[in-house]
């Protein structure tokens, strides 16, 4: 299997409700992450780094910022005459309406699938941050002779109400699947990344549609464990899931660790994103920056510690920023201080104002707010 044999379907809106602060104005795929990215960048880049040249992005709510971000797909080299990027906003032709679930999204993508020549489909969500080597996952799929391969993370279970927790046998075959078991805190959890043949996917969609099944994991995969060979592929390296504002904050801050950073940003699988044409970041006389991840286009004259700064952030002289995640164009005025704060785009902290959250309770400031 090469990239030419695979098409991707990315779904952006399934988990918006877990990050209501940030998804009030956008969908999960366009949530900013890591100083310069949007969450969709990671899965999109994973696909194109394997040579996939046909990707559909399905979206359901609040998708304007996502469409704005993806545009014609050029940053991912998906602005093609043949194949390339397909945007699948909801439509009402088949009564699907707004996609309430993965199942509805897949039904909405039927047309796309019918017009796809590629033999395999990778279906993925946007709420897991990883630099997926799709080639390795494809090789695993072939080696196991699997019908379906589910990528998984392991460790503390994310707090998602539809989380599929997997039990694997010695040959990585999924033998049991439970949805958000109440008594379990650790384990192997499906990362909502699934590889399978297009023909199988279409069959499963038709089956589900005929039976009126609403939930893909519960109604399709679980009963299929007996008849289909479903295998689990462990995501190596960085693998974080966003299930709350806290995990969003923690995952951003975790990038200050070189090991974590190197695991997510590998030289052979670059993460592409929309170009902004910022100048390099300017550090002024008397600025002090420690242990921080800083995107291009910032101007820093104050103090920044243990923080992640997105493109175009200004930190004036005498301002102090500690343990913060600041999004694009945040402006911290002179004499202001922020600690354990997440700012959305275009937030202004006026001179002398102080904001403080706690490491286990970061304070969120909404888009464009002036404090």
């Amino acid at each position, binding site marked *: 299997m090469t990239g030419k044999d695979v098409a991707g379907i990315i779904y952006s809106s399934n988990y918006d409700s877990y990050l209501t602060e940030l998804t009030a104005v956008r969908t999960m795929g366009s949530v900013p992450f890591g100083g310069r990215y949007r969450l969709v960048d990671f899965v999109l880049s994973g696909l194109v780094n394997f040579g996939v040249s046909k990707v559909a992005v399905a979206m359901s709510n609040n998708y304007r910022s996502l469409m704005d971000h993806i545009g014609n797909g050029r940053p991912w080299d998906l602005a093609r005459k043949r194949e390339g990027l397909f945007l699948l906003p909801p439509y009402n032709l088949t009564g699907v309406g707004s996609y309430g679930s993965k199942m509805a999204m897949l039904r909405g993508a039927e047309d796309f699938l019918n017009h796809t020549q590629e033999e395999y489909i990778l279906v993925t969500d946007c709420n897991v941050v990883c630099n997926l080597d799709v080639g390795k996952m494809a090789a695993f799929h072939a080696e196991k002779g699997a019908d379906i391969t589910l990528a998984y993370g392991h460790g503390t279970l994310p707090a998602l109400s539809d989380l599929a927790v997997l039990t694997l046998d010695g040959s990585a075959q999924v033998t049991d699947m439970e949805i958000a078991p109440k008594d379990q805190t650790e384990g192997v959890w499906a990362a909502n990344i699934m590889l399978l043949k297009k023909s199988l996917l279409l069959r499963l969609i038709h089956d589900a549609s005929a039976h009126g099944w609403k939930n893909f994991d519960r109604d399709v995969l679980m009963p299929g464990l007996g008849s289909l060979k479903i295998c689990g592929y462990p995501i190596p390296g960085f693998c974080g899931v966003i299930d709350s504002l806290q995990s969003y904050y923690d995952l951003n801050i975790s990038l200050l660790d*070189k090991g974590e950073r190197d695991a997510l*940003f590998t030289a052979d699988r670059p993460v592409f994103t929309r*170009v902004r044409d*910022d100048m*390099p970041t300017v*550090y002024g006389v008397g*600025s*002090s920056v420690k242990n921080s991840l800083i995107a291009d286009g910032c101007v820093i004259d104050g103090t920044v510690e243990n923080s992640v700064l997105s493109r175009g952030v200004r930190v004036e002289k005498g301002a102090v920023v500690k343990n913060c995640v600041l999004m694009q164009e945040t402006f911290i005025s002179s004499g202001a201080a922020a600690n354990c704060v997440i700012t959305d785009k275009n937030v202004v902290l006026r001179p002398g104002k102080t904001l403080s959250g706690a490491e286990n309770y970061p304070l969120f400031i909404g888009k464009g707010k002036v404090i």
Partner: protein
Amino acid sequence: MARKKECIAMLLAGGQGSRLGILTHKIAKPAVPFGGKYRIIDFPLSNCVNSGIDTVGVLTQYQPLELNDYIGNGQPWDLDRADGGVHVLSPYQQIEGTEWYKGTANAIYQNINFIDRYSPEYVAILSGDHIYKMDYAKMLDFHKKNKAACTIAMLEVPWDEASRFGLMFTDPDGRITAFEEKPKNPKSNKASMGVYIFTWSKLRKYLIADEENPSSSNDFGKDVIPAMHAAEERLFAYPFDGYWKDVGTIDSLWEANLDMLNPKANLDLGDASWRIYGKNTALPPQYISDSAKVENSMVSAGCEISGEVDYSVLFSNVTVEEGAVVKYSIVMPGTVIKSGAVVQYAMLAENVTVEPGAVIGEAPEKTENLDAWGVAVIGGGVTVGKNASVAPKIMCDNDVAEGEKI
């Protein structure tokens, strides 16, 4: 036939840039990295698109591979147009034989057919080795208002530097009355910036005449403009008062990079209304560690800084290890400066490795013989060995062995 354009630009990018030494051994001068993430040619190309000029011919000749590759289809500058856009124009074979571009005027002459396709009223002739932000639309308005045959952008330079430039004398209306080419004792400080707008019908005529003149060196400054002046064509000087620098030498390239750090230099790259565009890299944000001390510097994506950086410009993917010091220096992409190394008053090209304890360059105030002082330059891919040292003004294109002093 393409759609008619009011004004198109021709960008002279074929010069070797020999005074930049090892920095232009393998690439043309306009492709030399500048300002932390740009290349020199990004400035005139961005000026064009910001000024509303959407058709640009780039004349290349010397080492064009990297430059052609960089320009590509012009998308980074929004110059990938169905109608117009950027075109790389290299010398080509003709029935009468092949001819290199003999001079700046000849380069345009050989591309008369290209220009005629767009039947423009005006043609801007630009240079690929200047750093400046300029609205050519304003200059064009000036040109049209004056019904000029040629308008030359003019900058008032300090009198003590005037002798390095082609100088102009003007009447109160701005009409050029006389020229003086790099005089020993300048009587004017109005320098030509090497930015011209011509009325195409006029220029076309003079280019053909110039080509027929066997004694001509086929140069705009030396031949075409003097010929127009002699024929009493209307030549005007368009006053410009922003930042402008010819980065044709190591010193001026180094200075222009550091000028970006000087708010008084009037070269604001953060101005959203006049962005400088360039090809972007897919690199993660820069990381500044606990042990780092970064001040008064520009740093780009992908850098990992654990040492001391002061008054310097760092391009993408540069590593400065803990205990290393970088001062008054320009460090191009992918270079690694290891712990305990000191880099000062230097320019390091791409993918240089500076091993621990190596010392490159020296502060001018510590030099006994100031005449022998200059910026040290390390060529692309060079490794400077452990505890080696490179003296000021050296241009080093070969590896330096451990402990060696050059």
